[in-house]
Every structure is written in structure tokens, then in C-alpha cells.
């Protein structure tokens, strides 16, 4: 030990440390590029958007009430969360609604779909599920195909109907929701623009696995891309 330290000159030591740091840094950068939460320079990534954390899903949790979760809306372009749902229900101010248990049933804003919270308004929302990684979804299906496969909402997978493609599996008694990997949702915004959406996590910090049912929730991490030119082009990777 003593021998080694004495043979490495101070300058060499600094070089070695610098090299180590560079290697670490490089690998860290590389990690970021393939990070599931990663920015691609085009998409909007929202981390830990706080839902209704005052509601309890069971048992007696201090600071939480046994009551239904309060819905909220979200506007893609403005990156805006709207909690006054009553005043905005049938407006174009929102694109998706976070409803139900854990705010985890995500509805589109459609004025003509009686199952949408926006029914009676002007919204043009439609949503379909695709089992392709977000980065590889380059084009939205045709308007007709989307209309035909419209899910109206995405929540628990295969609930309540088999065709309900959800964004997570859920066990009611353990209250652990496990997001489905490589599932991307293609939708039309309230204004009728094509977009893609990946719902990544409903737990604070979006940890890859959750075993603690008391982990702070719901906090939504998701990313999306809205094609502003009206086309079906959804390419976000280079």
C-alpha cells in the first residue's frame, strides 16, 4: 500500500482521477440517453405531477381520507394542470383527464363521446393503444382506424372489457400498480391534433419497482409529443 502510493506522482494521480471521472461521466451520459424517462429533445417529459394525494385507497392512513379521488385535467400545450374540473369540463382547455382510483383512469376530451367527461363540448379526443416503444411510434394510425379502436380511456389493463388496453396491471388488495412496458398511446388532443403519450409511473420518483404500498402516490410521470402541423407524423427519434 505504502509502496504504491509513493510511486504514483501527484500529477499522475490527478490524471488517473480525471480519467476515472471522465469514464463515469461518459457512462452517466450514455445512461441518460437510454433512460426510460429520458428527454429526446422533442417530447415533453413531466415528472411527478401531483394528483389527489388526500384520498386513501384503504385502511386508515394518517392525513388521508376514505373518499373518492378528485379528478383533474391536463393541457398538453400549456403543460397545465387544471383542478377545477367543474368549470372546465366541456371546454377545450384540457386534453386528458386523470380520474378514478389514484387518478389513474386517463380519459380523452370528446364532445361527442358520451363516455368522455367532455361530452357535450367541442373536444375531438380519441385514444388508441399500441404495443410499440414510444420512440418507435413514428406515425399515428388513420383517423378512421383510431375511431374504430377508440378506447375512450386507459387505466387497468383489460378492465372492464378485454379490449381495454390499459397502462398498468393492478392488484386491488395490495394497491400496487405495475406499468406495462413498451405500450404507447396515440391520441387526438381536444383540438384534434395527433399526439403520442407514454404513461410511465404513478409513484413519486417513478421507481422501477414498487413493493411498498404506502409509497407516495399518485404522482404522475409521463411524456408526450403533440404534432402541431396536423399531420400524423409522430417521429421523435433521430
Amino acid at each position: 500500500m505504502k509502496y504504491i502510493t509513493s510511486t504514483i506522482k501527484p500529477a499522475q494521480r490527478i490524471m488517473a482521477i480525471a480519467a476515472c471521472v471522465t469514464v463515469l461521466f461518459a457512462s452517466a451520459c450514455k445512461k441518460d440517453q437510454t433512460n426510460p424517462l429520458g428527454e429526446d429533445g422533442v417530447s415533453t417529459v413531466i415528472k411527478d405531477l401531483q394528483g389527489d394525494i388526500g384520498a386513501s385507497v384503504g385502511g386508515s392512513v394518517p392525513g388521508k381520507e376514505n373518499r373518492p379521488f378528485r379528478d383533474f385535467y391536463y393541457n398538453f400545450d400549456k403543460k397545465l394542470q387544471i383542478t377545477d374540473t367543474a368549470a372546465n369540463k366541456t371546454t377545450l382547455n384540457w386534453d386528458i383527464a386523470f380520474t378514478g382510483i389514484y387518478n389513474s383512469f386517463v380519459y380523452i376530451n370528446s364532445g361527442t363521446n358520451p363516455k368522455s367527461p367532455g361530452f357535450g363540448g367541442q373536444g375531438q379526443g380519441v385514444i388508441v393503444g399500441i404495443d410499440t416503444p414510444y420512440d418507435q411510434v413514428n406515425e399515428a394510425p388513420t383517423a378512421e382506424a383510431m375511431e374504430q379502436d377508440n378506447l375512450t380511456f386507459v387505466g387497468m389493463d383489460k378492465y372492464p372489457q378485454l379490449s381495454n388496453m390499459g397502462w398498468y396491471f393492478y392488484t386491488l388488495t395490495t394497491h400496487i400498480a405495475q406499468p406495462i412496458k413498451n405500450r404507447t398511446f396515440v391520441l387526438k388532443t381536444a383540438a384534434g391534433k395527433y399526439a403520442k403519450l407514454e404513461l410511465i409511473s404513478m409513484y413519486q420518483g417513478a421507481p422501477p419497482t414498487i413493493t411498498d404500498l404506502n409509497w407516495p402516490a399518485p404522482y404522475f410521470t409521463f411524456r408526450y409529443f403533440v404534432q402541431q402541423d396536423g399531420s400524423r407524423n409522430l417521429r421523435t427519434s433521430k
Partner: protein
Amino acid sequence: MYLKNIISLKRITLLSTASAFLLLASCSKNSSNEVKPVDPTKPDTETPTGVATGVYSIASIAMDPGTNGNTTAKTFYYSLEENKEIPESQRSTSNWDIAFYSTYNSSISPNNGTNKNSLGYGGPGKGGISMVINSTIDANYYDNAKHELKSVPARDLFDQAFNAVTTVPFTDDQLTANGSLVLDHFNTPDDGWAWYDFYGNLFPNAPGDSKQHVAYAMPRTIIVKTAKGHYAKMIIYSLYKDAPVDPSRANQAGYLTFKYAIQKDGSKNLDIK
């Protein structure tokens, strides 16, 4: 139009009966040398299969005992035609008529080969499903504005609802359009056959979580078109072992107690005693 429907339905029944007879005949070959020739032109009433027209009660049959509410609950298949459970291995046959799947086995699928929301999708089933909401009976226990139970529905309401349905009030198209019957307004805007008290709101003063996550069957009569095309009505009393009227979390989920009436003459007459 109406007549046409009836004729095509009869034809379907006839065909399926004929094929069932063929199957029976081939099965009995081994045990008996006297194989009677099959005459497919004979009316189906002469070769009845399964149970007779009548009312059948099933008490506390196990679907997925001890289910923890996982959305991947073990699917339970049942034949109303035969009044018995059917194994999963026969999913792609017309041997079953209803299947219970998803969380707490609460989604009820008919056996339909063309509806992608049916567990029989891709198979030979011609079944369908729907539900009768009787507003007079509903008024006793259900808050229609909030989509919530006002109280636990009394047991006699179930029999009232069941007896009040004397014919199939739906067209075949209406029956086959539905993929599955589901929980009532639980995260979805759908009317359902059972109400799931996720938060324990019906009993706010109950100790701990004893009344949270409890599913209450509702007195709404389910109409089933069987895989082979017969009509039936059913009422489900409970999803818990031994069918307690007022279940709690302590009761074991994954059991089914129900009553059904099946009409084997091909008609929509459900005034069956």
C-alpha cells in the same frame, strides 16, 4: 324481419343439435354396437341436450377462491345448458355460456365468436349478454344520480327482479353487441351488475377496513343468449362464500351464488317457474 330472425335462429339450433347428436353418437360407439342413424331433419326438441327448460339454483360454487382482487383472476367458465363448470381447456368451444374474469371475477363474458370483448372470440359461440335494470326495484337501494348504493339490497329484491322478467327484452344484435357485463360505474361510465365499495362509503363508521373493498351484487336480471342460441335469465346473489346478505372484507371472495332459468324451445319466453 322478425320472422326471418326466428327462422335463422332455429336453423342454427337445429344444426348445433345435429352436430351434438353426431358427437354423442361417435362417443357411444365404443360402449354400444347399436348406433342409431342420425336424422338431421328431425326437430331439435326430440333430441334435447343438457338440462330441461326450468329454474336452477347454484350455491357458493368456487370460481377463484381467495382471490386478492388481481385483474388476472382465474377465469371461471360455466355452462347454463349443462348446469356445470367447464374447464379452461374448452374455452374455444361452444360448451360454455358465461365466463367470469378480471378483478374479483366481476366481468361476465358471453360465448361469442365474433365480439372481441368476448372470451369466446374466434370460437363457434353465438352467445350474447345484457342486463335488465328495473327502475322500481332499483329505487329501493340505488342512488341513480350518484351511481351508488343507498343501502345493501334486500335479498327478496333479487327474486322480484328475476320474476319480473318474463321475456327477452332485447334483439339478438343488442345481446351480441355487449362484450361483457361489468362492475357498476367503477372507474368507467358503465352500468353494471354489482357495486364495488372501494372506499367503504356505505358504512363510514365500520371499524378499520372491514367494509372497504366489498362488492355487492345488485338485483338486476342478466339476460344470456347461450353459445348454442338458447335464451336464459339469471340473477347473481353474491360473490362471497356462503352468500352473506351483507358481506364484509372478512368474507372470502371468489365464490358465486346465483339462480337462472333457461328456455330450451328456442323462444324468448322466460316466464319459467
